[in-house]
């Protein structure tokens, strides 16, 4: 018996040596991708499967393809809109016109980010910023307290940025019905601050308090995580012209909107500046927005927009449920600020160690937030936050909460964990 086992082990070693290069090849044609995939998904009828297997057993190419498919991450393990897996090349056409759109979101975020703990009282109504500020005005009204600190350089106004950035945003400004629909949908808004803007001190003049309705006027800015910012944007020297100063990008953006439809919405798209050589990427026509798409996206379970990882700091805005939603801002320094007045004022609610990445609010005063190394926080009154024990020190990248008891978190390695008891127990 022991001798048989030894021989079997010997055969194992022999097969390992003998088959290391795989089969030499097959004489007949390889199956099409749908047959190969149907084979893996076990949806072929038995006769078809049995007809296919002799080829697969002797075809190196097909075996290599099967092996690669077997090592690809399972789709179910990938949270939709996971920005860390969203290379900028995905929609080559989109980014051209989303680059300037970034400026609008960035300007709003920077203002909030630079004065997080203070009570912010802007002298501009958001409406004037978005819709009524004269486009010709080179310098927008300055927020009190900042004009003395910063040189009064002429920079495009937020309205100019908005107008230049996104014809789609402009189109949707007047669509109040759509805005309401968007507002009523609980979701998470991911926000980052654009380095191009943050690096310019004068850009802070553009900063406006974040308002959900303002952001939603530009849908692309609302739903798209935008490029990273430096961790300390203050007082950095100007390094790049403002996004709106990119006539080529803007011209292309406008041109794209007139082209035939090719790709989907701005969901999860990560706009970046064009770099030299990127023109080789496939050129596809930029899509235009649609109410159905926006509704579908906002109503979809993938309301959780996690922030990008490993590229510096990033702030995320979590919007609560309800008609007058609370807002929470997740700062890179593991701080959470809350706002009950659409971002006009912010209060520090939590500070701790670690990195906060994403949040989800299933009901008006309930919010779950996740971050690096298994950090999970939860509030049930909209103000006080409690750490929720998590079994593993995994980097968590997204969360989708159904209630104050039930939530599913996504780890960076693709695993998902769900709790039904407020975090007391988790199951994978």
């Amino acid at each position, binding site marked *: 018996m022991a001798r048989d086992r030894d021989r*079997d082990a*010997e*055969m194992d*070693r*022999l*097969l*390992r*040596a*003998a*088959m*290391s*290069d*795989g*089969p*030499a090849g*097959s*004489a*007949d044609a390889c199956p*099409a*991708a*749908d*047959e*190969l*995939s*149907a084979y*893996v998904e076990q*949806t072929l009828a038995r006769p078809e499967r049995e007809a*296919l*297997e*002799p080829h*697969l*057993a*002797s075809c190196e*190419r097909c*075996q*290599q*393809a099967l092996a*690669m*498919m*077997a*090592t*690809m*991450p399972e*789709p179910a393990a*990938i949270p939709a809109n*996971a920005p860390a897996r*969203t290379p900028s090349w*995905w*929609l*080559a056409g989109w980014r051209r016109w989303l680059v300037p759109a970034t400026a609008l979101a960035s300007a709003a975020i920077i203002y909030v980010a630079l004065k997080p703990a203070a009570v912010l009282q802007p002298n501009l109504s958001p409406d004037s910023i978005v819709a009524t500020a004269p486009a010709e005005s080179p310098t927008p009204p300055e927020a009190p307290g900042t004009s003395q600190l910063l040189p009064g350089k002429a920079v495009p106004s937020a309205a100019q940025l908005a107008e230049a950035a996104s014809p789609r945003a402009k189109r949707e400004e007047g669509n109040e019905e759509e805005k309401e629909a968007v507002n009523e949908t609980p979701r998470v808004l991911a926000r980052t601050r654009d380095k191009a803007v943050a690096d310019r001190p004068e850009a802070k003049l553009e900063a406006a308090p974040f308002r959900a309705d303002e952001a939603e006027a530009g849908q692309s800015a609302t739903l798209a995580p935008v490029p990273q910012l430096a961790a300390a944007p203050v007082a950095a020297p100007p390094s790049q012209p403002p996004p709106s100063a990119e006539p080529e990008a803007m011209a292309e953006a406008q041109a794209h909107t007139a082209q035939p*439809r090719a790709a*989907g*919405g701005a969901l*999860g798209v990560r706009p970046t500046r064009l770099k030299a050589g990127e023109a080789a990427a*496939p050129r*596809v026509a930029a*899509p235009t927005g649609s109410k159905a*798409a926006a509704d*579908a*996206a906002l109503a979809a379970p993938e309301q959780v927009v996690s922030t990008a990882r490993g590229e510096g700091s990033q702030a995320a805005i979590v919007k609560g449920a309800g008609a007058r939603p609370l807002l929470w801002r997740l700062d890179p320094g593991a701080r959470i600020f809350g706002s009950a007045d659409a971002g006009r004022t912010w209060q520090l609610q939590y500070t701790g160690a670690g990195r906060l990445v994403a949040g989800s609010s299933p009901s008006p005063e309930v919010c779950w937030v996740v971050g690096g190394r298994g950090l999970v926080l939860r509030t049930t009154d909209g103000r006080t936050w409690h750490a929720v024990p998590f079994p593993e020190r995994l980097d968590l990248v997204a969360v989708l909460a159904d209630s104050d008891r039930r939530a599913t978190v996504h780890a960076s390695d693709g695993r998902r964990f769900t709790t039904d008891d407020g975090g007391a127990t988790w199951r994978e």
Partner: protein
Amino acid sequence: MRGSRASTAAAEIAPALVRRLYDRAGAARWGLAEADFEASLRRSLAHRFREAPPSEREAEEYLGGLHLADLALAGACARGSEPAWEHFVHDFRPALLAAASAAGPGAGRELADSLYADLFGTEERDGVRRSLFDYFHGRCSLNGWLRAVLAQRAVDRARASRRLEPLPEPGTPGEPSVPAQPPEVDRSRRLVAVRAALAAALQQLPARDRLRLSLYYARELKLAAVGRVLGESEATVSRKLARCRTGLRQEVERRLRERHGMNDTQVADAFELARTDPAFDLARALPPE
């Protein structure tokens, strides 16, 4: 079955069946016309039944088992439906990007770029834009199909680049060392015997067993990954591999004894020789099917 591009005329699809499938697919959500959806169904039917048109019942069973929602989405994307593209980008993008990354960071990016362009359809034929979506027939999930297309393209690219690699010059360090002395005759004879016996034993195995062995030994997949390909549990894969090994060993030993007149000691020595000999490559001994 494979390799034949000739398609026969698809059987007629009853209008009521088309309507039912159209509703099941939710194709109206993407603004896909019923006639366009029917065209997708016909194409899928023709692709599946290339040799002979199916009976009405066969066609109904086949069509009913398709991934209809994905088929409708693909058809709508191929026709440039805006909401369909929105949905595709939102729901399929993360999986596609992650799948592309399996081909390597650089290659994955290029592959995904290329695939995306083909999905949109950068080429026109007879004035009609041809989208890669037209080749999705709903026999598998759209996600699975995208993964298979990516995998095939990645493999083809790797194989093409491998063909372009120059062969090592004689005498270079990469070349297998040539033994200074000719191998002893008995050693060579035993090696040939093992090789022939093992090749014959492998050829006797069912194709599925050979595929399992290849995926495990040649492609070096883990048991769980082999199971994902074959639709088997990890334990089943392990058990069947062990059974194959035992069967192969017994068959090789039998052949060595009966056809080559070896005793137990010689069989054991032959196994050891084959295992340690660098030139022992069974893949080259196995004829292609």
